[in-house]
């Protein structure tokens, strides 16, 4: 297990942002913790395979740079406001 169960998630495996938090802990104490990245919204559980928890093992094809987020396509488009 690469992460502490005490709420220290480290960098996001996907975008390497350090804006990460512990979202919840297992009902049976000490089994797993769910972490979340507040930059790219990636979510992972401490007990998942390293390809989902360790930034160095995370598949390159799914990695993100936080700068990319603002360039992703928007769907559906936001319509113009109606005139009052």
């Amino acid at each position: 297990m690469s992460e502490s169960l005490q709420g220290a998630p480290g960098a996001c495996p996907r975008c390497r942002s350090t804006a990460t938090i512990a979202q919840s802990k297992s009902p049976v104490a000490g089994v797993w913790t769910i972490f979340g990245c507040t930059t790219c919204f990636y979510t992972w559980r401490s007990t998942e395979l390293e390809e989902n928890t360790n930034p160095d093992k995370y598949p390159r094809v799914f990695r993100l740079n936080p700068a990319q987020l603002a360039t992703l396509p928007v769907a559906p488009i936001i319509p113009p406001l109606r005139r009052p």
Partner: protein
Amino acid sequence: MHAYQDLREFLSVLEHERQLLRVTEKVSFEPDLAAAACALTKIGETVPAILFTNIAGCTDAQVVMNVHGSWPNHALALGMKKDAPLREQFFEFVRRYRQYPGELERVASAPWQELVTEKDINLYELMPLFRLNRGDGGYYLDKACTVSRDPDDWDNDNVENAGIYRIQVKGPNRLGIQTVPQHDIALQLAHAEARGEDLPVAIAIGNEPLITLMGATPMLYNQLEYKMAAAMQGKPYKVVKTAKGLDVPWGSEYVLEGRILGRQREMEGPFGEFPGYYSGGHRYPVIEIDRVSHRKNPVYDSVYVGRPWSELDYLQAMTTSVPLFVQVNTTFPEVIAVNALYTHGLVVIVSTKTRYGGFAKAVGMGVLTTPHGLGYAKIVIVVDADVDPFNLDQVMWAMSIRVNPASDIVILPNLSVNLLDPAGQPPGMVHKMIVDATTPIAPDIRGDYGEILDTPEGTDAWQQKLVALIDSLKK
């Protein structure tokens, strides 16, 4: 025909029919749950649902998958015998679909109102969430009915919508939702956003099997899924109104109430999607949840989405074929049946009688112009009435014998398709193709077909006799 009151009743029927597998050994959320559900659909098309009750780190979590993931389970969901052939399920589905509308039965309370959370909502604690595929951006609610109304026509029940949309859990009370332009909810969201408002939603998880099928059915905008479910089950559909006025199934396990935030988009995805590819990341609408209700000891229902075939393909099988058939058959009563089982109807096979030369191509164009066809129906294969569109041996025979590419392939350039079709160029646009695999008839005199083979006298009687004899061999 049977009206299941909730998921629990359906699971007990599946168990009685030996179509439910309980896994009591300890499993991990990842990768066990998705791997087992994926493996099930590789085994065959008669496999059971699978219920996990001993998940590492949990005290009482119950997760069920593959509830719809076989033809016997699909038949039982419709209240038919579990060995009902595919073609029979199609025609029975059509018969009931044409009974629309059934009625709503509004009641004051429901079991899902037993436990309510309104403060410090944390969906990660309230539900057994988990990852399906390694590249998914997070944990998804992928089998929930999302209920919404049209802000421009709020009190009109017929345009209320209960649809299955993919929803990513992105924070304790924050979700992302995919509303592609062909979906009804996208129209409602556009109306809310033009008004500068949020769109109230209720997300119902763990439902009896029929409303899940209806939520996956591309019916017309002014057809309400609950009224179709009522027609399909031959009994009024029981719903409960939320404080915001949204109708929610009486039998749901969990109900999340909240709002799609008007005029906001945010990173969502990727998610392994129905075409068998990851969707990529987009900026999609955002939902904030204000209230979570659930039963005691709730059962969490999820669908594994993978490279076809998976459970999702059963959910999108008859539910795609039947509305396409009903809509095309209204214009062309010569149409006999529609098979849109493949990838939500990106490929459609239509069998039809033909009245004169060129007729089959017109039927093909009719499929393209149905509401669902606008976003799917990339390839339409039209076969004669003597070909069963659900029997691919027969379809391939028709393709091999009744097609001359010189005149039987029609390409229509630059038409609309679902954004998730990876072949789109740009995404959302594609050429479409009609393959006329019917026998040319006058005045379209082409080919030299002569006399078609029939069967020797007595073949049908021999078939019946031999089936019985072969069965006796197995005893």
